[in-house]
């Protein structure tokens, strides 16, 4: 069985059907890119895999590591090894980044004390995400994921809004998250990843084994990531924004 299997998933968010029968598979150790125009439902798909309250699965199933997780709580999914970098994580007033990283590490199997590597050492006492810039949010999310060390990581536009120098940092840190730290081989294992990207920049750092294209809540295409990206760059998605 695949690491992640989604069967004919229908999802409602905010009284509207956003995902209209999504099926896909992701193998262990695989990195998969997810393309699609704005509003096509990419973030909603990741939110549904994570189990967020804003999504309601009306039909279909999600399997992870062979388990039906369709109605599992968010923390159970996290403990099964799913990790997530949100596109727009919420502000949590009164909860500092340091506290959240510590709590994450307690439940996960990653490392703490590496905030300097993420240029986040001055943010540990700040309320998480409150007043963080776009790039700071990405680095903070990655720091949290490093404390969790999931087996499968979902990244929602890790490079968007990030300047060139920081893209390099983020690219390298995502690489570490997937392949392990330089010089270590992660026990020969490679963490699986599902990455939403509009530009494909992150693929320069972590590569991709395959890609899906989501349009109007349906998988419109599946195949070689570079070929698909080239095609999108030259011909566009061939649809109006929803």
């Amino acid at each position, binding site marked *: 069985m695949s690491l992640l299997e989604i069967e004919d998933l229908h999802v409602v968010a905010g009284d509207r059907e956003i995902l209209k029968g999504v099926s896909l598979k992701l193998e262990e150790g695989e990195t998969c890119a997810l393309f699609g125009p704005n509003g096509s439902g990419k973030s909603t798909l990741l939110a549904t895999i994570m*189990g967020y*309250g804003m999504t309601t699965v009306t039909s279909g199933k999600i399997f992870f590591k062979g388990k039906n997780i369709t109605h599992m709580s968010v923390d159970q999914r996290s403990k099964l090894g799913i990790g997530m970098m949100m596109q727009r994580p919420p502000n949590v*007033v009164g909860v500092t980044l340091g506290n959240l990283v510590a*709590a994450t590490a307690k439940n*996960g199997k990653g490392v703490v004390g590496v905030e300097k590597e993420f240029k986040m050492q001055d943010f540990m006492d700040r309320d998480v995400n409150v007043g963080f810039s776009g790039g700071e949010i990405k680095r903070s999310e990655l720091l949290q994921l490093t*404390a*969790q060390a999931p087996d499968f990581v979902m990244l929602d536009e890790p490079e968007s809004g990030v300047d060139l120098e920081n893209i390099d940092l983020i690219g390298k840190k995502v690489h570490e998250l997937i392949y392990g730290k330089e010089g270590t081989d992660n026990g020969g294992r490679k963490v699986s990843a599902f990455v939403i990207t509009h530009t494909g920049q992150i693929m320069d750092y972590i590569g991709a084994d395959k890609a899906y294209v989501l349009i109007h809540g349906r998988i419109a295409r599946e195949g070689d990531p570079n070929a698909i990206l080239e095609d999108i760059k030259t011909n566009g998605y061939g649809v109006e924004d929803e």
Partner: protein
Amino acid sequence: MTRIDENEVKKALDKPAAYGEDIDLNEYVEGDREVEQIENITDTPEDLKKRMINVGVEADDDGKEGTILFIDNAMSHCSNKAQEGLIIMNTQKALEMYPWARDYYWSAIDPTKDKYTAKTYQEDSDGYFIYVKAGYHIKTPVQTCMMLAKNRSVQNLHNIIIVDDNASLDMVTGCTTVHHANQALHVGVSEMFIGNNSSLSFTMVHSWSDQTAVRPRTNVLMGKNSNYVNNYVVLDPVGTIQSFPNAYLNGEGARCSFNTMCIAHENSNIDTGGCAVLNAPNTGAEIVSRNISYGGKMIARGKLVGNAPGAKAHLECKSIILKDGGVTHAIPELEASCSDVEMTHEAAVGKIAQEQIDYLMTRGLSQDEAVSMIVRGFLVGGIRGLPTNLQSEIDAAIEKANEGN
């Protein structure tokens, strides 16, 4: 002391308070005015000590400039380590010893305000009297503990705090009940005076029993460039509290802030808040309240009155409801009699945003852990300058409340 009409006070004995449910004073017997004297605060009986620590008062008074313990209506302990500049004693004794103390007595609060002030007036109630001489900055806090020990009694207190010009004082006061005194009434009249260029920080922690009734009456008169900080914390179950302290910013450039943090447990009825009256130019006030309801009744009030140019103030009442069954009510009020003022308010009542809970659960925290972390952040994060020793009390209260729900 201004002239007080005894007849009016007598009439006021039946006058219900402006807010909160009315309490029949006849249901309570008088509190004792003779209590055991504790010479050395470390000799306080263990059960009392525990209750003191609960409200942030240290039975070992090493880090404190002075300590006062009241049990019911009488002082049981009083110590003053400051060599100069600080007077600490009971109010009635101060009135005897210092004729000038009379000038302050009943000068900030009108005894005919309601039945609680009237009763306190009629009883010539005792309380603590704290005076900081002009020019003195009292380095470590003065702590007071007001304990209710006699069941079905009314504790009537009259406290006076005076910080003279160019001086400063930190006060930590804890009010609590001894376990067998569950059904009792606490009435505390507090008159505070802050001189020019002076500051007073007043932190009050209440930990009552689930049937205690509490009616504090506090007014603060503030001079030029003075500063007043009021922190009020109620974490444990209580019967009913109604408290609405008023600060009068009468001197130019005065600043005050009221921070209130309450947990309304099931069957608790809490009505709290604060009022700042900005009477002088360029004064500033901030009223912040953060409350949690676990099924109790919670009314969060706040009132700003702008009467002078350049007055600037902000009011923020936020409550989270964690359990249905109670009522949560935010009542922010802004009143201005002058065009050149800037007063704003923000009020919010509701549950925790699901998105925040989901976010923390993504990192492996359970639903309960996520809620606790957010609740703690909500309570502590919104209020600056809270004494750090309170934080562990807050954690314990949140944990206890979560367990019971």
